[in-house]
């Protein structure tokens, strides 16, 4: 039985939508137990309103919660009994196996980082995000690629980037059912020698791995094309890229609205395209994907979108369940150990220490 702890108070629509999503998950996943962490009175009032399995959803009381706009470190210090802190504690104590939260991202990541050990061989954790792409991948024809890190580790060394590649590949294999995901480093050119020193060194290391399907470097414009299934970068760059991609999407939507208002011909054009747009929307609906995983710790953590509704929460719980059932953390640890072993056997060369930060 996989025990999935859910921060019931985190998210813009908490606790109603979170409880609803967890209730649905209890019906869809008979081999899982869902532990809702939050105000027991409130959760006890909501749960009986929803179809669920009463033997598979339980409540763990937490008297407070971290607001979406609170500063993570301060909030966690001021609220040691907040729902996210209690939830991360439960997993750390072995009373849960995975965590799902739609709450404050910083507080969630910090709560896990302070309580959960990193997997052996992993130096830094990485927060991954999914982005809709032109190309599809895996047995599920997944229209999303994985970008990591998007903010957990601001500055990443070459070893960190290699670790991210291993973790992202393992996740894509399991969740997208992509047998051999294409892994790429995000750089300012496709040549091996381009980019900052850690990227060049990581490239050199990844080229030698047989465990990964490393396709080399890609540029920013390759992300939405879907050239790679797993895009590896530092937390700083990843976060900037992700925000920019989101900004572009929002701008496109705003332009479409403007066009809809401005001219009848443009409006007619949009109406003619509406069914295709709807289809595209359903394909790239982030709610289908569940959430972004925080990888590198001994337990899976799925960070659902702050605006998550019940459907997105159910899917996030399903992703957590899949990660547990497929032993995601075990796979990552094993691959990291294999890489470590090979690195120890290999004599050190000048390439390991130096790099040429070429610019395009």
């Amino acid at each position, binding site marked *: 039985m996989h025990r999935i702890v859910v921060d019931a108070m985190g998210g813009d629509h908490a606790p109603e939508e979170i409880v609803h999503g967890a209730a649905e998950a209890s019906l869809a996943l008979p081999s899982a137990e869902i532990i809702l962490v939050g105000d*027991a*009175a409130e959760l006890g009032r909501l749960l009986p309103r929803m*179809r669920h399995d009463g*033997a598979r959803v*339980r*409540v763990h009381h937490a008297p407070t919660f971290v607001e979406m706009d609170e500063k993570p470190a301060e909030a966690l210090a001021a609220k040691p009994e907040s729902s996210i802190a209690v939830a991360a504690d439960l997993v750390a104590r072995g009373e849960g196996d995975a965590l799902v939260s739609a709450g404050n991202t910083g507080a969630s990541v910090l709560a896990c980082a302070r309580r959960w050990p990193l997997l052996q061989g992993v130096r830094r954790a990485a927060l991954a995000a999914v982005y809709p792409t032109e190309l599809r991948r895996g047995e599920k024809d997944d229209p999303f690629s994985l970008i990591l890190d998007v903010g957990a580790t601001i500055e990443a060394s070459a070893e960190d980037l290699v670790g991210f590649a291993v973790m992202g590949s393992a996740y894509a294999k399991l969740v997208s059912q992509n047998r051999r995901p294409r892994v790429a480093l995000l750089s300012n050119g496709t040549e091996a020698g381009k980019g900052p020193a850690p990227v060049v060194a990581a490239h050199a290391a990844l080229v030698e791995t047989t465990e990964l399907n490393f396709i080399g470097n890609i540029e920013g414009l390759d992300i939405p094309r879907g050239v790679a299934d797993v895009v590896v970068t530092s937390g700083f760059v990843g976060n900037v890229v992700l925000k920019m991609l989101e900004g572009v999407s929002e701008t496109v939507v705003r332009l479409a609205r403007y066009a809809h208002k401005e001219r009848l011909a443009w409006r007619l054009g949009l109406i003619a395209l509406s069914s295709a747009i709807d289809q595209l929307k359903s394909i790239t609906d982030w709610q289908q994907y569940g959430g972004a995983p925080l990888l590198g710790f001994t337990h899976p953590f799925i960070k659902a979108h702050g605006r998550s509704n019940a459907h997105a929460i159910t899917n996030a719980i399903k992703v957590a369940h899949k990660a547990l059932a497929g032993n995601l953390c075990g796979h990552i640890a094993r691959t990291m150990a294999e890489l470590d072993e090979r690195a120890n056997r290999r004599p050190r060369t000048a390439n390991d220490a130096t790099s040429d930060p070429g610019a395009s």
Partner: protein
Amino acid sequence: MTPRSLFDRMSLLPGRLGQRLGLLDHVPEGLPDGAPPPRHVFRWDLDKTYLRTEFDSLADLARSAVENAADKQAYPGATALLRALHQDGHRICIVSGSPTQMRQVLAAKLALDGISYDEFVLKNNLKNLLRGRFRALRAQIPYKLPAMLQSRLGAAAEAETLFGDDAEADAIIYCLYADLIAERVTLADLERVLIASRAYDDDAVRILDLARRVPKYDAVRRMFIHLDRRSAPVGFRHYGPRLVPVFNYFQAALVLYGDRVLSARQVIFVALEMLDSGQFEIGHLATSVQDVIRRGRISREVALQLAAEAHEAAHSGALSGRNDLPPFEQIAHAFRDRVRELGPVDHRADELTATLDYVRLVDEEHEHRRTRRRRGH
């Protein structure tokens, strides 16, 4: 008086054959002459309450009809619960909507499970079909209510507990029955409900007659609705605290323990049967305890008292030979943890404040059933 001689038994054969073919109605034999009235009657539905039955589609119905006794599955814990109730000398009456032609296979299933019962009433749908009474084929209230009233006429007890499910109108029928025998529903009210239920005129006359004659007493202590469809429990709140929706039979056993009907030892036997089914782990049972406390169906004190009594029962051999289970202390610890996880919050069930409008409930049920049919459920 129960006939004993060969001649008497022979004289019953044509009647039994008629009942099996569905040409004659099976009237439950009441108590033998001079027998004391039962202390407590437990009325059970079968499909989706005791037996895991799928009849959401025609294919399910066909499969269910040709299944043999060994293929039929009881819900985990239901067998142990029924056995415990019968061993305590309570009267077990089964009223099922399954057709009379299935009596043999259903009786064989109950025998396989070691279930003894005092009454077993099935629905004579062949008779309805032959008389062209198509409305009666699906009708619930005009079938079950008179069956229960007839049964009470034959053997009235001061206490009754009813078991049904959320697939059909069991909650409405059971509450109507409870309120009728407690004289909270008048015959005029009942007549209106029967009209809303689209009962045939002669059936309505018969039901009203039974209702007039049935011994009146506020006898129904509990009604359990097995949430086979996993319906939201809040949907049953308006029936009041006497009706308890349960996700599994461990929860029913807990409430009956709280009602002083079952002992801690009997609750353990229900739990063991559920664990043996492979569908439940100790964690599920502990979560089930938390769920009934959270819904205010048992108090924390009752749960803790059960833990203490179960501890004694375990030491006196209730768990002997169960090397597959962790030590009882470990099990009790898991249960106490679940209670503690609820924090200091006081959970109480909402009390019934308004009397039930059965005509409205019947109308809503009809509408609900129509919607389900439209959606293909």
